[in-house]
């Protein structure tokens, strides 16, 4: 019941293009992820970072792309993003600061002495929150694509 094994020809143009644009897409996604001074945010930047890895998997196959994102690194990114955001949120809940607002966070951490009120608010929302969301979204989308595109016994010829 298994289909015949086909021999795929390797194309030079496609492989060189993905080699060149893969780091540029990662850089662009990072720029959007930290952008609270303009358009951008956590969710948007995370999906762009995941799109770079999905392009690599589509062109090269799952065996070769596993070296770029092994299982341990994937689990590290997933849990690190969740720790950053949920840690900041649960501390606020446990100490019962502001039942439904997030605005009182800078008063709890002693950052305002160094940076000022505006700097501490943009630090919290821009770096802790957005980076946490972006890492979790990227890691979970990449792992979902690996699972759905993986074949058990049969491999394409030459990959």
């Amino acid at each position, binding site marked *: *019941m298994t289909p015949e094994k086909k021999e795929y020809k390797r194309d030079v143009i496609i492989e060189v293009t993905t080699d060149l644009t893969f780091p540029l897409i990662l850089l662009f996604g990072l720029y959007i992820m930290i952008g609270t001074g*303009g*358009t951008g945010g956590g*969710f948007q930047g995370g999906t762009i970072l995941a799109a770079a890895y999905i392009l690599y998997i589509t062109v090269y196959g799952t065996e070769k792309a596993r070296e770029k994102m092994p299982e341990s690194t994937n689990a590290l990114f997933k849990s690190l993003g969740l720790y950053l955001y949920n840690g900041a949120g649960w501390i606020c809940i446990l100490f019962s600061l502001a039942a439904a607002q997030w605005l009182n966070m800078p008063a709890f951490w002693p950052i305002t002495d160094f940076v000022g009120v505006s700097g501490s608010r943009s630090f919290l929302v821009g770096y802790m929150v957005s980076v946490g969301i972006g890492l979790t*979204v990227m890691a*979970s*989308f990449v792992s*979902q694509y690996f*699972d*759905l595109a993986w074949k*058990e016994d049969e491999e394409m010829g030459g990959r």
Partner: protein
Amino acid sequence: MIEWIVQHILEKYNYWLAMLIIIISLSAIVVKENLLKKLIGLSIFQTAFFLWVVSLGDVGRNIFTTFGLKTGTPPILWKPAEEMGYIYVNPLPHVLMLTGIVVSAATTAVALAIVIRIYQKYGTIEESEIIDKEIELEREGGEVRNAAN
């Protein structure tokens, strides 16, 4: 007469377009037999709904109300733009629909994983053939068959 047409039909073109896409995708979920095509219809349904809700917050003048096409800019509050007299689009529908987009992506991924398991058990994806195989299994009283085990 023309006022009634312009006021009720031409000004609200976003309602008509979104409802058209919703109706088409809803019929695709019900009618099609292939399981993957049903999933595509579900994804288009969710996208059309988010498009409709985001278009509710638009601010500005239409070409149908007064002459001039000054619509709102994206909601990023920037001092030089305020001095030039630009008006911002309402950011509230964007905020509320962003979680919905991510939820729809996660739901589609889990649904695709379920379709893969169905294919491994029955050997086909067509809905009518799956129903026929189920009826055969009930009649024989046989055990569960696995295609690739």
